[in-house]
């Protein structure tokens, strides 16, 4: 018997037990569908997250300075910190550095009109930060170098929204209290897409000139630097040169670096783990589907004992019987698998429509779903087929 005859026969047999075949197909359909849907959406989610990140550019570098533990160093070293005046010097260490943005983050109580402002984080910054982190102004202007030590500030979009809810539609010119100081609002930032690179939330922040932030707290020190580099920079070499310079300026401090590529790699790793997890969950439902197929094939073997006996009497070998049932199981799961792939892609597409991610066809999940469903067919069909082939024709043909 050739393969074509085998497949035709399998289809014929499956058609004659429509409801049963349908139920078996349903199990595989849901299983394959969930594998395809979960893996596809997980990968699309990764791509979405990465795309957000990549728009920021990969020509960025962050340096974080950690002061040494107090008590083990002298007081002279403890007070040492980077100053705004050192920035041009740091920028000059490599021609690949285009811009340096030092910043200070402080947690201070912020009051407006006598009420505490939700969440407010104080960010001491120069105009370079707006440039590198793409902070746009909705109203007014950003804080400037020219502000020197004047208490001006820019508020984030969430804070502005809070103010608007209190009836203050135009916060420009209004004053807010940070610590013991009163600041005049000179600008409102546009909603800002947060990223894992700049560690403060601009939307819930109040940006003040870097010089001014020193007066707010004795702990105000430049502990973070952001660098914008030339396109396609040699990040390790820049990093090494910056490190040498910072070590010279701040002996005994711990200095660590972050760059988007590093973070993208971490994200990719995490997402790969996540994809595996989701794939395994889908795999479990496929396993259940496979058990369903096995169950249904076992019932089919019992019901078709007579047929098996007749086929053996006319000359079917045990391998012919085994192949017949195996083929049925495979055709069944293949059918369920193909429908499942369509269903899974449809689910993934609906998800992208709902979440606003970009949908595009990924070849791996459907391919994986296809291969796995065929394997499930072979594995779950093997035992019933084996049982069928071991039947004794004399037993099955005994007259009722």
């Amino acid at each position: 018997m050739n393969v074509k005859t085998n497949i035709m026969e399998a289809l014929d047999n499956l058609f004659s037990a429509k409801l049963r075949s349908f139920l078996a197909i349903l199990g595989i359909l849901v299983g394959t569908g969930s594998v395809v849907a979960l893996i596809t959406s997980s990968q699309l989610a990764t791509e979405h997250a990465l795309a957000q990140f990549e728009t920021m550019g990969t020509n960025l570098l962050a340096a974080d300075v950690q002061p040494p533990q107090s008590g083990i160093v002298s007081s002279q070293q403890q007070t040492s910190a980077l100053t705004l005046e050192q920035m041009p010097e740091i920028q000059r260490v490599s021609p690949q550095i285009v811009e340096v943005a030092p910043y200070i983050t402080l947690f201070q109580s912020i009051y407006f009109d006598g009420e505490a402002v939700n969440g407010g984080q104080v960010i001491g910054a120069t105009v370079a930060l707006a440039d590198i982190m793409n902070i746009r102004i909705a109203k007014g202007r950003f804080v400037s170098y020219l502000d020197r030590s004047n208490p001006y500030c820019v508020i984030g979009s969430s804070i502005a929204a809070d103010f608007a809810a209190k009836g203050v539609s135009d916060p420009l010119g209004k004053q807010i209290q940070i610590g013991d100081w009163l600041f005049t609002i000179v600008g409102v930032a546009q909603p800002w897409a947060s990223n894992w690179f700049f560690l403060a939330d601009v939307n819930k922040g109040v940006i003040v000139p870097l010089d001014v932030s020193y007066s707010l707290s004795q702990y105000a020190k430049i502990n973070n630097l952001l660098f914008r580099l030339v396109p396609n920079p040699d990040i390790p070499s820049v990093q090494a040169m910056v490190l040498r310079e910072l070590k010279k300026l701040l002996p005994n401090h711990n200095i660590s670096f972050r760059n988007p590529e590093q973070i993208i790699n971490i994200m990719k790793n995490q997402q790969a783990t996540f994809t595996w997890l989701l794939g395994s969950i889908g795999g479990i439902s496929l396993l259940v589907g496979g058990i369903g197929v096995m169950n249904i094939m076992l019932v089919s073997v019992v019901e078709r004992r007579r047929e098996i006996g007749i086929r053996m009497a006319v000359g079917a070998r045990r391998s012919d019987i085994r192949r017949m049932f195996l083929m049925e199981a495979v055709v069944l799961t293949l059918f369920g698998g193909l429908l499942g792939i369509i269903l899974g892609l449809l689910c993934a597409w609906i998800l992208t429509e709902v979440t606003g991610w970009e949908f595009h066809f990924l070849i791996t999940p459907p391919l994986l779903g296809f291969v796995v469903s065929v394997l499930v067919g072979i594995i779950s069909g093997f035992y019933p087929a084996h049982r069928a082939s071991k039947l004794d024709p004399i037993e099955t043909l005994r007259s009722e």
Partner: protein
Amino acid sequence: MIELRNVTKTYWMGKSRHEALKGVSLQIDTGELVAIMGASGSGKTTTMNILGLLDHPTTGEYYLNEQDVSQLSHNQQATLRNHSIGFVFQSFFLLSRLDALQNVALPLTYRNVGAKTIKKQAMAMLGKVGMSEWWNHRPNELSGGQQQRVAIARALVGDPNIVLADEPTGSLDSKTGQAVLDLLIQLNKTEKTTVIIITHDERVASRCPRVVKLRDGLVMEEDG
């Protein structure tokens, strides 16, 4: 030519031993029409299973065309059944999902033959049993006599050496039974096929030139 030499068959049911055949020797020439008779428990079904290569004898030899086939493997048995033996059963045993033509073609599908040849041979065989116009009917659309004709066509389509008919008229009324028996006898003459009919019906046996009677697992007498 078929020869059974001192064939025994012992079944074990738990610890109790049952000797179905106690030493059957039998020789049947090519083209013969033989009835094997006996009451239930006489060993005629066991004899048929051994002749039909569905079972192995416990001891003794079975020669089919000068070849000892008593201890073949399952696969060798299946292949030999496919080529050398045709079965006709009391309850027809047609596959209900297949039409008459597909039922007749069934033995050929286990040979390495093209689909067109299979169809042609099966159709020709249906013609010989007078069932050509019913080729696309399923068993449940056919009468008992018609079903048995289709079953006979299936037994003969592979051009076997022996046709083993187990109570072929058992589930038919006497008139239809006569017609089916006539067909078997006629095919025995025209196709020169050895036909062995297992029966307990005297009227069936009386139509056969040779009758072998079994009792308690032994050949009691041979007429003919």
